[in-house]
């Protein structure tokens, strides 16, 4: 190994050993730039707003990251988010919030399993399979709900527990809007990062995505691993739907539209490889934060020749740049 030498060597060492160093550097860099150049950016209100906006995506990105590491994609997460929101919200409004919670989790996980089963039994690429189930699930939701939006004025305590204002923190920071979903998200991030990097299953996920043939040759049950990852992806989408309803007390059939690509973008910006075999949950969280921060920053910047509607384009450019940067870091060693 290299003898410990100059700061430059140590710096390079950190970047090559850690998968999160790159995205973290990007996050820090953009944060500093926006804080300096954009008025009103560096306020607790703005920052907590960014964090809140990224929790819903962050939750989905957890599942998406794990799935992408195993080499697959799930485009149906947006639809599953709506399914979760309806199951939880509908039953909570009918007086059965806990049952709603349970059903939302179980049903979305099962629908994820269906995605996985279709994949392993037909061999059709997951991109195509989930493109199909995306429309299938949302279409079924349309039919079952008859397009009815859910909306409630009852402020049940469970909504507060799930995604209410986190007053404990808010009291320290003026005009902050920390929400409880942040805590739930951190718990999930830590849980799944541990599963990914410290368990046998996690090892198999990396192997299946990195070289499915080698994994199969070593006795790994590739099909089971992929189906489980799809279940997790569905589950996370369901959780996101639950958090959505708990925050806004409403859900529509179209809720969650676009979340699939947003989550994939967060994963990629956070260092997950599109081709599979590498990535981290922390990275996905950082990726979601970066994108959310950019959105907010561009809107606040109010650039005259870039109407706020075009912030998507700037976000898009940054995603590409971040992905190139992460790739560059990875290939340096």
């Amino acid at each position, binding site marked *: 190994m290299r003898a410990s030498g100059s700061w430059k060597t140590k710096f390079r060492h950190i970047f090559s050993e850690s998968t999160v160093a790159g995205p973290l550097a990007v996050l820090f860099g953009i944060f500093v730039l926006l804080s300096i150049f954009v008025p009103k950016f560096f306020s607790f209100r703005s920052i907590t707003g960014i964090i809140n906006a990224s929790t819903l995506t962050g939750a989905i990105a957890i599942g998406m990251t794990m799935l992408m590491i195993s080499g697959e994609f799930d485009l149906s997460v947006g639809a599953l988010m709506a399914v979760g929101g309806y199951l939880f919200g509908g039953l909570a409004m009918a007086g059965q919030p806990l049952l709603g919670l349970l059903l939302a989790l179980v049903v979305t996980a099962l629908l994820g399993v269906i995605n996985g089963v279709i994949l392993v039994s037909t061999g059709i690429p997951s991109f195509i399979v989930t493109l199909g189930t995306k429309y299938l699930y949302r279409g079924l939701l349309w039919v079952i709900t008859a397009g009815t939006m859910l909306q409630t004025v009852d402020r049940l305590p469970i909504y507060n527990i799930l995604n209410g204002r986190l007053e404990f923190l808010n009291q320290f920071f003026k005009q902050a809007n920390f929400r409880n979903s942040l805590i739930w998200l951190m718990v999930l991030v830590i849980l799944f990062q541990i599963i990914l990097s410290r*368990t046998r299953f996690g*090892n198999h996920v990396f*192997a299946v995505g*990195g*070289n499915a043939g*080698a994994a199969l*040759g*070593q006795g790994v049950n590739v099909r089971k691993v992929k189906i489980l990852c799809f279940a997790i992806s569905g589950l996370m989408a369901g959780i996101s739907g639950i958090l959505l309803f708990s925050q806004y007390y409403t859900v529509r059939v179209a809720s969650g539209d676009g979340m699939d690509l947003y989550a994939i973008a967060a994963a990629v910006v956070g260092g997950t490889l599109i081709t599979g*075999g590498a990535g981290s949950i922390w990275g996905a969280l950082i990726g979601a934060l970066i994108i959310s921060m950019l959105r907010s920053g561009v809107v606040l910047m109010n650039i005259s020749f870039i109407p706020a509607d075009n912030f998507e384009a700037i976000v898009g450019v940054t995603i590409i740049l971040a992905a190139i940067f992460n790739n560059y870091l990875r290939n340096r060693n």
Partner: protein
Amino acid sequence: MMAEKKIEHGRNSLVWMENITKKFGTITALQDINFGIEKGEVRALLGDNGAGKSTLIKILMGVHTPSSGQIYFEGKPVQINSPKEAREIGIEAVYQDLALVNLMSISRNFFLGREMEKKIGPIPFLDLRNMEEICRNSLHDIGIEIRSASERVGSLSGGERQSIAIGRGVYFGAKVLILDEPTSALSVAETRKVLSYIENARSRNLAVIFITHNVHHVYMVADSYTVIRQGCCVGTYFKGELSEDDIADLITGDREC
């Protein structure tokens, strides 16, 4: 005309494949092949492209099942229906690009599918430290020195990767190692190293089968070689019985056995 002595193997050999036939639809890849190998024997499997070498090996590895015929292992008839079952019997395949996951570390690759766990309370976690230590030590025992077990396999050279896969097989008690073109795309120095690991495996009484086009490498390390041509086994010979040219003739069919 040289007197050629064909080696006789049978049901008492370590591995004996009897009258194996494999058809893919209307194509017959293997026709009534008999193939056997003993403990501690290093066998080269020679044959032109499409002759059937890979198919034979894949049957032994559990990737294909024979259309007819029977495999015997240590004297007992066995069914090998998957790579996992092959591994459980003691047959390990070391394919250059299919044995390891390049993005993962050496120790994670070493223990892939057989991860060591330690329990914290009721939950099992990977015992990463133990895995790294055992990995480094057992590779050292075979003569393979690695800098760090947490290094990514992708950053190693082709020969180093082969050696890790061989070391893994030896550590986990493989009885038969199967290598596919182990020395192609390697430098001279690396080739020598890989051949030395094969020697080491032989000294531990493992049987080694390696597929190769390189007759010269056969001479360097194999005890014997089997020539396959167009799905038929042409014969198994001791090293030295035939010249390199004779072997080439056997492979292409310019010479009948």
